[in-house]
């Protein structure tokens, strides 16, 4: 059962990730990303992290993909006559991706991996909270501060252009 689920989610994730890359239409690419996320959330559940799967769906599918779709609609980027890719670019991209896979696979094949426990207790929200508020207290504060800075940055970015347009 777990094997079937792994194969299903893995194929779903990789196939829709390919859809993101090869699709001409940006809206279809965003929907491919959404399906890929659902597959990935399923894999997280198989890895005994249902809470992370939930957070992933909440943050990515709920916020990030919706934001992408919103911007696509806002900008109206109809795919015009696109220049064909140079053969060199395609070849170099394929070579780079292939080298990446080969490198990581050979690394995992040769690495001495620790003996995995067959079963673990599923981490609950309490376990995560204990870690986040003891060991990782400083990173949590830093990330919160970074979110504040990002929010300010977005405001400044969109305000500056309004001022220059108003000055004309």
């Amino acid at each position, binding site marked *: 059962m777990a094997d079937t689920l792994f194969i299903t989610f893995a194929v779903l994730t990789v196939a829709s990730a390919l859809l993101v890359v090869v699709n001409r239409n940006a809206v279809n690419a965003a929907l491919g990303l959404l399906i890929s996320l659902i597959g990935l959330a399923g894999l997280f559940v198989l890895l005994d992290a249902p809470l992370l799967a939930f957070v992933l769906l909440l943050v990515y599918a709920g916020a990030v993909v919706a934001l992408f779709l919103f911007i696509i609609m806002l900008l109206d980027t109809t795919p015009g006559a696109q220049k064909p*890719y140079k053969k060199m670019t395609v070849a170099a991209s394929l070579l780079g991706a292939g080298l990446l896979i080969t490198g990581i696979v050979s690394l995992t094949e040769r690495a001495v991996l620790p003996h995995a426990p067959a079963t673990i207790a599923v981490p609950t929200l309490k376990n995560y909270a204990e870690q986040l508020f003891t060991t990782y207290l400083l990173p949590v504060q830093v990330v919160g501060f970074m979110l504040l800075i*990002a929010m300010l940055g977005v405001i400044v*970015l969109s305000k500056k252009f309004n001022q220059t347009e108003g000055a004309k």
Partner: protein
Amino acid sequence: MTALLNHGPLMAIILDGENLRYPSTYGLPSYLLLSAVLFAIGFFGVLLRKNTLVIYMCLELMLLASTLALVAFSRFNGTLDGSVFVFFILTIAAAEVAVGLAIIVALFRRRHTIQVEELNHLKH
């Protein structure tokens, strides 16, 4: 209850959530391979696509691939650190998307295009 638990991980999580017992032939190398393939697809997309928004989506794919590797390592080492780190990655990714899309919108207002081949004003 135990008969129901044997149905699979999803059912077991819904019903019990304490100690899962299911044998899986796919271990850490399978998950790492999948993560590598996802990362390579994202990398390929970043190199190949011309639309800035799609390049951004491919960047997100690469981030997600690294997330999968972290969760897999965390699960098969029996520790929680990797999973906690995923929280930080998700936060950073959300902030990055917000700022990046704001930059893209500002760029579109100025240049009326988001194709990378037409955004070459710094070259000349």
